[in-house]
């Protein structure tokens, strides 16, 4: 049966214990490294010490993280906590998609990679109809033209563009 303390807790139960424990452990580890990772300068006042603010922030993380952990209405991990941790792991797939996109753009080029990336990820998400594929391609083209062509954001030309003939090479490097 749900206790009064559990009922009043803000947010879902699943994953809270794992998060609080990992947060606290990392905070304690970082605080333990403070002597090695920061310097104490002689003849400088306390507030001017390079170590002062890391100590304040990490001290706060440890103290408040520990109090949060202590205040949790649960003390034992349930199977829902593990299920939640698996969900967190599953989201890493999309982080990998993102990083793949990041690594391919400087090699192949912003336009070609975006034109492949958007429809491919849309397909992975279950949109396989011609309409959605068309929308994906249109969106990819629009993003490249708007940001690189019109707003001129800093995305360098790709290695592949170097092999293009003279004027086309310049155009691709500047606008696509």
């Amino acid at each position, binding site marked *: 049966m749900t206790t009064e303390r559990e009922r009043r807790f*803000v947010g879902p139960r699943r994953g809270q214990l794992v998060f609080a424990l990992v947060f606290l452990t990392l905070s304690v580890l970082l605080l333990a490294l403070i002597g090695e990772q920061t310097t104490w300068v002689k003849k*400088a006042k306390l507030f001017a010490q390079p170590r002062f603010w890391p100590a304040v922030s990490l001290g706060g993380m440890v103290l*408040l*993280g520990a109090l949060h952990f202590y205040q949790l209405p649960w003390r034992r991990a349930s199977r829902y906590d593990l299920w939640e941790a698996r969900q967190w792991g599953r*989201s890493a797939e999309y982080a990998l998609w993102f990083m793949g996109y990041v690594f391919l753009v400087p090699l192949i080029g912003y336009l070609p990679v975006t034109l492949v990336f958007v429809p491919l990820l849309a397909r992975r998400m279950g949109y396989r109809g011609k309409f959605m594929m068309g929308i994906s391609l249109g969106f990819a083209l629009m993003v490249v033209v708007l940001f690189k062509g019109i707003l001129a954001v800093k995305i360098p030309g790709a290695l592949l563009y170097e092999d293009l003939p003279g004027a086309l090479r310049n155009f691709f490097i500047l606008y696509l």
Partner: protein
Amino acid sequence: MDLILSAIDILMRWDVALALLAGSVGGVLIGAIPGVGPAVAIAILLPATFSMDPIVGLTVLLGIYGSSMYGGAIPAILINTPGTAVNALTTYDGYPMTARGEPRRALSLAYSASFFGGVFSVVCLILFAPVLAKVAPMFGSREIFLAALLGLILVVVAHRGQALIAGALACLGIFLNTIGMEPVKYTQRYTFNQDFLGGGVNLIVVVLGLFALSQAFVLLMDEDEKVHVTKLRGGMFQGLRELTRHPRVTAVSASFGALMGMIPGVGEFTAQFMSYTYAQKTSKRPQDFGKGSSEGLIAAETANNAVPAAAMVPLLALGIPGEALTAMMLSVFYVHNVVPGPGLFQNDMDFVVALYLALLILNVLVLGFLLFATRALVQVVKIPNRFLGVCILTLSFVGVYSLRNSATDCLIAAGFGLFGFILKRLSLPAVPIILGMVLGGIMEVKLRSGMARVKEPLDFINRPISFILFTIIILVLASHILRVWRDRKELKEAEWQTKTASTSFGKLMSRRKNSFLKDRGKEVRGRHSKLLRRLKGLF
């Protein structure tokens, strides 16, 4: 008058006009799509605005900030899903009006209320600007440190029931800001001898990870929902007439919005809550609130739209952002070498007034756009969640990669994206991290310079403004501790009420004695002492 004329002169440019149009229309569109929100859009567009003039870049971002709440009312009223987080209260009375066949009335009322809130706030601030210009120079290092500390404390205590973890996350933000080369003594802090950490953790990379990428991950992991949108017929002007029938609620809600917006860390939610409560308590029909009351809708929408202009006050006058969106805008100022703070009010007052005028024009543009284009705009609500996730992921790349063309930045952003995803799943706040990063940097610099000029710690608060700020901090902390104590007392009472056993002290001691004497109690104590012995053995 000269000031307003020179401000108009700054705005009379084709690129500013285009920025106003793009910001207002873009903001409404972004607000109308549930799951995107102004934070995601501003985070993605930030690097693109770096190449623009400060006034142009800020107008685009302000446009998105100021107009997204107008757009957010559309799905809140039509499909009971708030377009932006601050439109949650709009669903209380907006959706019941749609359910009883009055979607057009609800929408036009929401637009009119938002328009009044926005314009009221801007007009108040234009009139208030000369006072601010006089007060702002009184803020030295100590006052700015205390104001930043107050902002951080207010953000933390605003998360009721989550203040401890919000505080811990704010400290994480302060810690992230300390990573890298320390600029006074030139020592490394938490770089682990890695070159990429030497320059510190970039605020925009963290913002993009925590707001844009995390939202993309949430949408990609989500299921698509079938959305049924009610058809709209007829004109949208009736709300303007209806608004004039509730002048008291409208004026008080706008005042709450303007006032709350000015206080760092408080923002839309408190303003809405106070306006809604006031409107309900003073209404002749309080029983209608939550069931489609026009006064409730007016209170919610007027208050939330009065906040954006007011939120610019601490940012422009003191250089202290009160929430995540203004914290992002602070980076645009820094990129263009415009330093917000007392100096800006003294030297570039026309620039400040130009920003407020831009907000005023923006409200007119948005209202005009919405009155005529709502029927077409409603269609954006139908964009499937997962496809939206694909779009945000693609756009986030532009935001992160165009900063420094660094794959490491993208990797850090992806890491913060996963962290933000976890925070969202657990309903934990990400805003304290961003404010911790921004205000932590300000606090470090100002405390160092402030303490260098005082002999004793108490001298830190010997000036009137610093003393007032210090007193407010003490009062906020005391009221928070009192609230926590009352909550705990309530919890104890509720726990005792649900207990079946007697609550008298004698009975409690008797039960404790029995548990000590019973075999089960002895067994448990034996197990615990065995574990303790093992633990001691380890050392």
